[in-house]
């Protein structure tokens, strides 16, 4: 067996691009260093691509350059045009592309093993490489079909409600075992049907795994698929003996895994229970949302008056703000309040929105300075000294039942202590709907709570108008 890369400079070049990728992630430790980090990432990618092109004999350069130009052009246009509220869908779509690319590369390596240096002297693929190939294709295929479903759910094309198949755990486990068994068999028999069946089963299980998971669990799903796309790249790196791919795969794999962990912890749920799916499917059909308790409705003028008199206001945005596209007018409200001498802070729960950091990006888009934006644990102690807690499009993350009611599905989830604030303003479309968890929220009925029932954007616009008088 012969390997293509005896030149140590080539290996060093790939190592350099791996290190540049590490620096790209390292840059994200603070917004000020992040832009430099991103440039390191681009440089790393450039080195990897150029190294590959100059160290291989290329039979088809025009086609390759054409392919790079077509893909690059499409990617560039999408990146310029996409609305920030659509970031979760975009990320899911991009994950699916990595997954599919991994499947295609795996198949190409299977069909032309000499080109990848994984063929033995007898022309057959080395057994170790077969396992790596099988895993790479399987993980890639799961990433692809799973991300497609996640994309459809996030884009609203497919209902965000969990879809529960009967016997799904048995089916999933059987499919998974089938894939593992076939990859084992692949080491003995490298026939086409084996790898074709592995690919088909992996596409199927990616679909089956994501379909039963509901919309608000998507932060976990998107992070998990992020992780898978990394493992797929790593598996291909093993096949190709390429350090850039292995380092990157490991980085991306751990990154996605850590994000999934953070998201699960922020919901106080086990990773397995999220993956098993079905959360909220039963409760939301129940009669949890009885609103026969007394509650107070406020107008935009009332809200504007109280906000204007306040010393400190904490704004808690949630997914509803993203849906209503209310981030820009919200920042306008914040500016007006600041002009009146009110201290304005934004409080973001780790699972607010549909992907990690979703709310931060939207606020950044609306030009909210990032040093006015705080994480849950940094701001939760401040509600007692806060005049108004302003909740816009969030619900479960301010539900005190998470602290007191052991029978509640969200019990144990860390939540904002909004009930300590002097006044709570709660923007909500109507009293009927409940949060994702399908449980009633005691905050609605508290003495200091003012319900502002309207579309979030409309309501904040009215408050801004009222503040101008």
């Amino acid at each position: 067996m012969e390997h293509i890369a005896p030149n140590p400079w080539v290996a060093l070049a790939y190592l350099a691009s791996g290190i540049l990728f590490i620096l790209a992630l390292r840059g994200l430790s603070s917004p000020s260093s992040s832009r430099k980090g991103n440039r390191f990432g681009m440089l790393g990618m450039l080195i990897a691509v150029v190294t590959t092109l100059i160290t291989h004999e290329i039979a088809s350069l025009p086609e390759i350059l054409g392919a790079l130009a077509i893909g690059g052009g499409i990617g560039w246009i999408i990146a310029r045009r996409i609305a920030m509220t659509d970031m979760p869908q975009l990320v899911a779509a991009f994950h699916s592309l990595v997954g599919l690319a991994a499947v295609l590369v795996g198949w190409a390596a299977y069909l032309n093993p000499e080109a990848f240096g994984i063929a033995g002297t007898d022309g057959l693929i080395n057994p170790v490489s077969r396992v790596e190939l099988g895993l790479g294709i399987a993980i890639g295929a799961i990433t692809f079909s799973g991300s497609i479903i996640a994309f459809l759910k996030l884009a609203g094309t497919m209902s965000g409600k969990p879809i529960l198949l009967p016997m799904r755990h048995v089916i999933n486990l059987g499919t998974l075992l089938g894939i593992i068994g076939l990859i084992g068999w692949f080491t003995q028999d490298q026939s086409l049907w084996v790898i074709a069946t592995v690919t088909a089963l992996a596409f199927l299980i990616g679909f089956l795994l994501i379909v039963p998971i509901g919309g608000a669990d998507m932060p976990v799903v998107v992070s998990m698929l992020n992780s898978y796309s990394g493992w797929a790249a790593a598996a291909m790196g093993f096949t190709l003996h390429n350090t850039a791919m292995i380092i990157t795969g490991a980085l991306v794999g751990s990154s996605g895994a850590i994000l999934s962990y953070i998201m699960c912890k922020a919901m106080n749920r086990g990773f397995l229970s999220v993956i098993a799916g079905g959360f909220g499917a039963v409760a939301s059909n129940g009669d949890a949302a009885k609103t026969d308790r007394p509650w107070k409705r406020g107008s935009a003028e009332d809200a504007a008056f109280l906000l204007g008199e306040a010393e400190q206001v904490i704004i808690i945005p949630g997914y509803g703000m993203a849906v209503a596209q209310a981030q820009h007018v919200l920042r306008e409200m914040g500016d007006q309040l600041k002009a009146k001498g009110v201290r304005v802070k934004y409080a973001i729960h780790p699972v607010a929105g549909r992907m990690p950091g979703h709310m931060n990006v939207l606020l950044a888009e609306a030009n909210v300075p990032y040093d006015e934006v705080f994480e849950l644990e940094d701001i939760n102690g401040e509600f007692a000294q806060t005049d108004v807690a302003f909740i816009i499009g969030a619900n479960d993350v301010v539900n005190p039942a998470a602290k007191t009611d052991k029978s509640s599905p969200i019990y144990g989830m860390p939540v904002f202590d909004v009930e300590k604030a002097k006044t709570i303003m709660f923007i909500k479309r109507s009293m009927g709907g409940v949060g994702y968890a399908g449980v009633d929220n005691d905050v609605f009925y508290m003495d200091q709570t003012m319900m502002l029932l309207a579309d979030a954007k409309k309501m904040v616009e009215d408050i801004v108008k009222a503040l101008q008088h």
Partner: protein
Amino acid sequence: MDFISILSIFVMACFVGYYVVWSVTPALHTPLMAVTNAISSVIVVGALVASAAAGNATSKWLGLLAVVLASVNIFGGFAVTARMLAMYKKKEKK
């Protein structure tokens, strides 16, 4: 390279990834996902190898298609990350 050296690189890189990612500020978790997306498209290396090689036409076309997909991700991922990061600003000094 033998399997064990490759495995060592992989395991070490997992540890590096673990510590680097925990140091990422939560406010930048969305850009983190976008940029990890872009860099995982380093899989384009495999796609280039497949499309550069002579010998098997199917393999070449699969490779070329993978190059297209990966480059959507590379350009799209880095560009959208840059766009997001450009929005994170500090409070302007009065």
